[in-house]
């Protein structure tokens, strides 16, 4: 097992380098000199040339890439064009907010999702199942910005239960987290339901019942642990979806997080910042899937002992 995890780790590293390369190339095929774009039409040629040289933009692409990679390894992601601060510093403060947001959302999604999925599976094809299944599909189908705006409009603007924006206290996180978690909750609910229903078809469930366990005992002691394996992996890779949604929620609720930073970077044509935020976000996703693999092999003895 140790070997296969090492292998996965190596694979993750390769993917990470691929990600850096991809963003690097994609952001630099944009026509025009980014310095000119940034400084507008009034920039004088001399300043543009000086800054271009300063930032190494006149060098060949592969040289630039290696330079970026080596400084990134040292934790230096360059300086933001539009905000004039080191990217690493900006990321640090933004990441905290995004992390809180994502964790709150995940907590909300997983508790709600697993509970819904359980109810569905237990009452298969009866009314509660249909109801909660529809509910979870609604969750999957609801665009994050709709959920965000709706919650903001009703609970913050009309009812004034929560602040419209800002992250001064935990109350500021409630609405964004709920809006963000909605989607994931639907996915978790569906996965829990199908996985549990499938597990309940297994032969060992029959054995457990023949042993004299009741419906509930079978569910808790035998079905749940097996059924949760795929659900747990889903949860770990859900960070990807949560980060996608964070871009929207942070914009709607004006939270200074990674997603909003990214939107700023795009509107300001700020390549270092855009590159930094992408790198951070993808790292989180890759870490998530790595975590999922580890978790799976810890929970499933069949994998634990092999390899």
């Amino acid at each position, binding site marked *: 097992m140790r070997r296969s995890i090492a292998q996965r780790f190596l694979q993750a590293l390769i993917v990470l380098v691929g*990600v850096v390369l991809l963003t690097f190339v994609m952001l630099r095929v944009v026509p025009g000199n980014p310095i000119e774009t940034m400084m507008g039409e009034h920039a004088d040629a001399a300043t543009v040339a000086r800054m271009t040289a300063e930032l190494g933009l006149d060098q060949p692409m592969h040289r630039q890439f290696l330079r970026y990679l080596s400084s990134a390894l040292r934790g230096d992601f360059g300086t933001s064009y539009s905000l004039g601060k080191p990217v690493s510093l900006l990321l640090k403060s933004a990441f905290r907010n995004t992390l809180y947001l994502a964790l709150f959302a995940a907590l909300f999604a997983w508790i709600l999702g697993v509970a819904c999925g359980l109810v569905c599976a237990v009452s298969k094809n009866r009314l509660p199942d249909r109801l909660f299944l529809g509910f979870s599909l609604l969750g999957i189908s609801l*665009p994050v910005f709709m959920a965000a705006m709706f919650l*903001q409009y009703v609970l913050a603007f009309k009812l004034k239960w929560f602040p419209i924006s800002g992250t001064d206290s935990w109350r500021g996180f409630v609405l964004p987290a709920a809006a963000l978690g909605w989607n994931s909750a639907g996915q978790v609910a569906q996965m829990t339901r199908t996985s549990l229903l499938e597990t309940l078809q297994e032969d060992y469930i029959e054995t457990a019942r023949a042993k004299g366990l009741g419906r509930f005992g079978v569910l808790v002691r035998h079905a749940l642990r097996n059924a949760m394996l795929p659900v747990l992996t889903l949860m770990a890779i859900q960070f990807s979806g949560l980060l*996608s*949604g964070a*871009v929207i929620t942070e914009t709607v609720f004006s939270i200074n997080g990674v997603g909003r930073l990214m939107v700023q970077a795009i509107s300001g044509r700020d390549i270092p910042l855009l590159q930094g935020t992408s790198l951070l976000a993808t790292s989180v996703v890759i870490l998530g899937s790595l975590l999922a693999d580890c978790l799976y092999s810890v929970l499933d003895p069949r994998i634990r002992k092999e390899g």
Partner: protein
Amino acid sequence: MPPGKRRKTEETADLRLQSQLCEEERFWDLMRRMARENRTAVLSFILIVLVVLASLLAPVLTPYDENGMDLMHRLSPPSQDHLLGTDEGGRDELTRLLYGARVSLLIGVVPALLSLILGSALGVIAGYRGGLADAVIMRAADVTLAFPSMLLAMVIMYSLGGGIVNVFLTLTLVNWANVARVVRSRTLALKSSEFVEAARVIGVPEGRIMRRHILPNCLPTLLVLFTLNIPASILTESSLSFLGLGIQPPNASWGLMINTGRQYLYSAPWLCFAPGAAIMLIVLAFNFLGNGLLDVLDPRQRKQ
């Protein structure tokens, strides 16, 4: 190695009684079964057809012009004349919604189709050929999947610029990896299945095996993927447009309508919530339909 004594004896036979008695069905039988058993899927299908028809027949259905400004009636709330009110330019919201449906549906279908073609071609090659091709394709898919989809879409839109063609391209690039992965695992499963081994023993050439045995058996999976990719594309595009990175005016997708309506969220909430509800409904309908198809076509696939 097959176990020496693998009998399909009664235990499983009994449990499979129902399906065995129904005799496994062909595609149209399955569709009919879905129609019979899954009302929601049928309703969803009807809804989708209605939306398509309504958007095509928009010029007949509404007396207003899509871009006909009427500054006397800016931001007027829903009324008899304007069922869903008017926007900041006094244009009828319902009319704009109907025309917007064309763009939004197109944005759902075209990238879903493109990514399906790209993804399944690469997936089959990766799965069947294995080796270097597999490694390269799958690492590329890993890199794509390492991006949160919004993020990747934003970066690509940034480098390509706005416009509907670029939106198609972007969404294709965002979605292909998922398709490739699913198709690859399906291909791997089929490749090791006994009937493909049987074809190989008979001497059927590789190309023909892929065409006659692998691809047809992937079709149900592909249909499901297609149906579920449409809502995913619509959602991503609407999020992009919401941030002002997607479709550019004068083309109006539902996402873009929300983006412009957002400034009036507190004074004219219908400008956001009407297109929002439209997106939700159509996405919900596609998801219901997709899940219905999944249930009848590919019951095993659900787990992953």
